[in-house]
């Protein structure tokens, strides 16, 4: 089965939001704060512009509360009295001509009385920089198991380390874009997004409307990676406010620079590890401190921090663990969701630290991992008992075998001893990723999904789960067709539209195939039951029954739905107050191996081979699953080696693709992927989440390989040539 919308995309016929021609549509554009923090004194509209020709919106045009509805409501839709980061939206303009909008935006001056900005999350704020509580820390979380201090005191070896990761820009190739119009009194928003119901709730709240007054439609979305999880709510509000005031459709399409400068990015982090081992190399204590830069508003940071600390100890068994997490507000652009959601940061730290520990203990890093990998019956940091029958040691051994660890090490030793300026090394890591929402998240979401039985015998899957390249449409079609014994052509998966689709939750957290996919299957079962068929009925019997049902219910347009709502798998319990229990229904497990070559003339690191071995329950679609892994690995290679946000007053100053560098086809080797299958009882056809896992491993695998090649100990990514040069100079390498 090929990707259903694949040919439409390959031929350029897929219509993204900027591809839609709308009669009478205005272009919208945004005037932004020049200052990272301060009181908004004045907005001056330049005299070079005839403002009567423009629609202009500011905070006074917002009918409801000036708040972007999310976890907290601290972020204004448009700054009213105060700004907290550079590029914060202040005023919106709209005009028929995009060019005139550009001129208008350039002619507006935003005047701010600057106040001291907090710009380095690693430093405690000065009293003048404090903006939240006593120390700008807006979320603290803690996981505790056993007695860490006593175990550290009794340990044969204690190894410490500090690890840092930088911000990362999503670089979805389709920039953020949103179209809004008003039809029969309903505000309709259509655009590029991951979570239609997040957008719907944000519209309801700030526009002061109920669900009958707003409607959200997802357009084909050219990549998200978390970047279109929360930000589209802001953009939808902007477009809606302009459209309501203009009484005409308004489209806002960001260009690349505006998108990079003003939308969310991956949270920068600093993680400290203090780890105790006994004489045999068994880990007996892990003391971990996680600090993340939340940026100027809360957005999703508490949840990112939560996932970060839950994955902070690595896929290892240790009886005494303490993980403390803090997210601190600064005056940088708000950091938000990004593939992996905090786990790549903390797993970079723990997996890099494992190699540092191995070196300190005089052990082979693979052997150290093998000893400590969690076995069935053992518990994670939150006390979750792992008992899924997966052989994690076998995954590690398979990755080592595929990269030919033993052979490569010997080969590299002689190569490195003789080559004038090239050095090679291999690094291996073990990673895991909890699938679906954390803890009781899925229970609170209560996701719902419908499968409509149509009069012609076809079915239609109605959900708010979006297609953004990861394959939702194809997977849902396959799941429904397999469940009911139908042809793929008999299953329709329309674009999510809140008018028809129930809230099946946000398209995030690697939950779509596993959690929502299961709802597809159960709604299919319900549909079958509704037309009086037995569970074994398939294919023609189903189609005939659907047609017959519509015959028997004559009012034309009567709707027949199978429905399903999330049910917590049995035996799962989570204590949100104490961070104890089953953090996730299940985890995906993996071992990744990287081979690198460093050129000591330029200190540039190139990944020359990459192996990704993972157990993800069941592979639903081989090509798409492999594509998820390969794409995630390359995105993580970028994060590890070259992607660096450069900051000035909390603003990203390299917000162009010429200066923020992502990998090209020529920068990466083929990514060799292998799947091990161990079906998960509570996922669709046995599937677990997959999309985020590949973001967790490449960073530490590559840095471990660099350390092996050069004998230096890098603890920060991106490991740019400039950074590596400094380390080599200190260590007298090359």
């Amino acid at each position, binding site marked *: 089965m090929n990707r259903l919308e694949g040919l439409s995309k390959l031929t350029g016929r897929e219509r993204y939001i900027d591809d839609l021609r709308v009669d009478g549509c205005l272009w919208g554009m945004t005037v932004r704060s020049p200052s990272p923090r301060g009181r908004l004194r004045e907005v001056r509209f330049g005299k070079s512009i005839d403002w009567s020709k423009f629609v202009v919106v500011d905070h006074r045009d917002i009918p409801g509360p000036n708040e972007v509805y999310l976890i907290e409501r601290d972020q204004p839709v448009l700054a009213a009295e105060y700004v907290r980061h550079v590029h914060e939206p202040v005023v919106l303009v709209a005009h028929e001509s995009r060019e005139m909008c550009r001129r208008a935006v350039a002619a507006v001056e935003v005047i701010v009385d600057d106040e001291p900005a907090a710009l380095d999350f690693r430093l405690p704020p000065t009293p003048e920089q404090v903006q939240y509580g006593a120390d700008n820390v807006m979320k603290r979380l803690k996981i505790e198991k056993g007695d860490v201090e006593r175990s550290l005191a009794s340990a044969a070896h204690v190894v410490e380390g500090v690890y840092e990761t930088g911000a990362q820009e999503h670089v979805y190739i389709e920039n953020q874009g949103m179209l809004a119009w008003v039809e029969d009194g309903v505000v309709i928003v259509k655009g590029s997004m991951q979570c239609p119901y997040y957008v719907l709730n944000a519209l309801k709240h700030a526009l002061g409307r109920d669900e009958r007054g707003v409607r959200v439609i997802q357009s084909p979305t050219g990549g998200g990676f978390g970047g279109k999880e929360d930000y589209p709510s802001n953009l939808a509000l902007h477009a809606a406010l302009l459209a309501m005031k203009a009484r005409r459709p308004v489209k806002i399409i960001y260009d690349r620079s505006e998108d990079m400068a003003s939308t969310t990015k991956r949270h920068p982090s600093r993680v400290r590890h203090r780890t105790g081992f006994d004489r045999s190399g068994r880990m007996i204590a892990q003391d971990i401190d996680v600090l993340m830069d939340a940026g100027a508003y809360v957005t999703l940071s508490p949840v990112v921090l939560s996932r970060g600390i839950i994955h902070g100890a690595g896929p290892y068994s240790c009886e005494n663990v303490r993980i403390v997490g803090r997210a601190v507000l600064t005056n940088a652009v708000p950091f938000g969701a990004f593939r992996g959601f905090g786990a790549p940061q903390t797993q970079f730290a723990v997996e890099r630290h494992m190699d540092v520990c191995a070196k300190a203990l005089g052990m082979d890093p693979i052997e150290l991992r093998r000893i400590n990998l969690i076995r069935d019956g053992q518990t994670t940091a939150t006390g979750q008992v792992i008992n899924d029958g997966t052989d994690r040691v076998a995954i590690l051994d398979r990755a080592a075998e595929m990269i030919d660890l033993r052979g490569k090490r010997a080969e590299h030793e002689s190569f490195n001893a003789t080559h004038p300026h090239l050095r090679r090394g291999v690094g291996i890591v073990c990673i895991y990723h909890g699938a679906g929402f954390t803890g009781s998240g899925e229970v609170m979401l209560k996701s719902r999904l419908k499968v409509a039985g149509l009069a012609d015998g076809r079915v239609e899957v109605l959900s708010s789960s979006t297609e953004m390249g990861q394959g939702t449409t194809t997977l849902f079609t396959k799941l429904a067709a397999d469940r009911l014994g139908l042809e793929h052509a008999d299953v329709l998966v329309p674009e999510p539209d809140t008018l028809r689709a129930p809230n099946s939750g946000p398209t995030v957290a690697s939950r779509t195939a596993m959690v929502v996919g299961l709802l597809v299957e159960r709604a299919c079962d319900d549909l079958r039951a509704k037309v009086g068929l037995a569970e074994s009925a398939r294919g023609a019997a189903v189609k005939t029954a659907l047609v017959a049902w519509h015959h028997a219910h004559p009012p034309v347009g009567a709707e027949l739905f199978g429905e399903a709502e999330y049910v917590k798998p049995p035996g799962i319990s989570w204590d949100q107050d104490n961070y104890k229990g089953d953090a996730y229904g299940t985890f995906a497990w993996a071992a990744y191996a990287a081979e690198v070559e460093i050129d000591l003339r330029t200190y540039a690191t190139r990944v020359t081979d990459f192996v990704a071995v993972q157990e993800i329950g069941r592979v639903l679609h081989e090509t798409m699953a492999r594509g998820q892994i390969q794409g995630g690995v390359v995105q993580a290679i970028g994060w590890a080696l070259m992607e660096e946000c450069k900051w000035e007053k909390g603003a990203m100053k390299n917000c162009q693709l010429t200066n923020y560098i992502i990998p090209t086809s*020529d920068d990466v080797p083929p990514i060799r992927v292998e799947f091990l299958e161990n079906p998960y009882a509570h996922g669709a056809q046995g599937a677990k989440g997959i999309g985020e896992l590949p973001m967790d491993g490449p960073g530490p695998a590559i840095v471990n390989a660099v350390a092996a090649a050069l004998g230096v100990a890098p603890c920060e990514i991106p490991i740019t040539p400039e950074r590596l*040069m400094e380390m080599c100079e200190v260590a007298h390498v090359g």
Partner: protein
Amino acid sequence: MLACEERRPTPIAGATDLLVHWPMNLAAKERDYLDLTRVDSLRPMQWTGDSLTLGALTTYWDVVRDERVGREFPLLVKAARQVGAVQIQSRGTWAGNIVNASPAADGVPVMMAYDAVVVLRSSAGEEEVRLDEFYLDYKKMRRRADQLVVAIRMPRRAHDVHIFEKVGARRAQAISKVGLAVVHSAAGWRVVAAAVAPTIRRCRTVEAMLERGDAVRSADDLTAALRKDVSAIDDIRSTKAYRERVLARLLYFGLKGRSECPSVM
């Protein structure tokens, strides 16, 4: 048209530099432009007994696909393949690379290493300026506003050393952080550095060292001479320290052990 001082247009060819972020470049849209791409006489490459002449409209791709250029001026091909992706190579011109005057240009260093001469034409006649004397300061050139670059001429020589190194933030499609072109022929050593000074420039102190045969036993032995030749800075793409050190190392490892320069050990 260039002679008209009233509203002198800017000549354009491949437009690969001009049109970057074009929609937001409100000021650039106010200016006038003279499209050269229709002047077919500016396009071809020409060989004579002792020189190769690139027309002002010769593109990188024209050079990449020319086997003879690849044999006699291999660094032109090497630089062209790294200037940007095929989509840039097909549009960008060598003359455009010269007059855009970026200190991080990729085409200029190799042309300068090959002793290129810039042919300028105006209504007053033709003038020739050596490329290594063409740049006065950052974006300042020995070109009058009424002069158009019509060709670039390079002498055909037997070279026994050809080195071109471009260091970007990734292998393909990147703006240079450090660039180096080195050739050696009967005319002597040419060492040209990019992205380490306000203009692309020859490293004459280093060239003199190589001519004299001063012993060079490590990259560090080149640092003092290079500092006389270049003046690297910290900017959005890299650091002064990195640029200086990498330039020295590229040069050292490029020459080390070669019979043409036994003094580099």
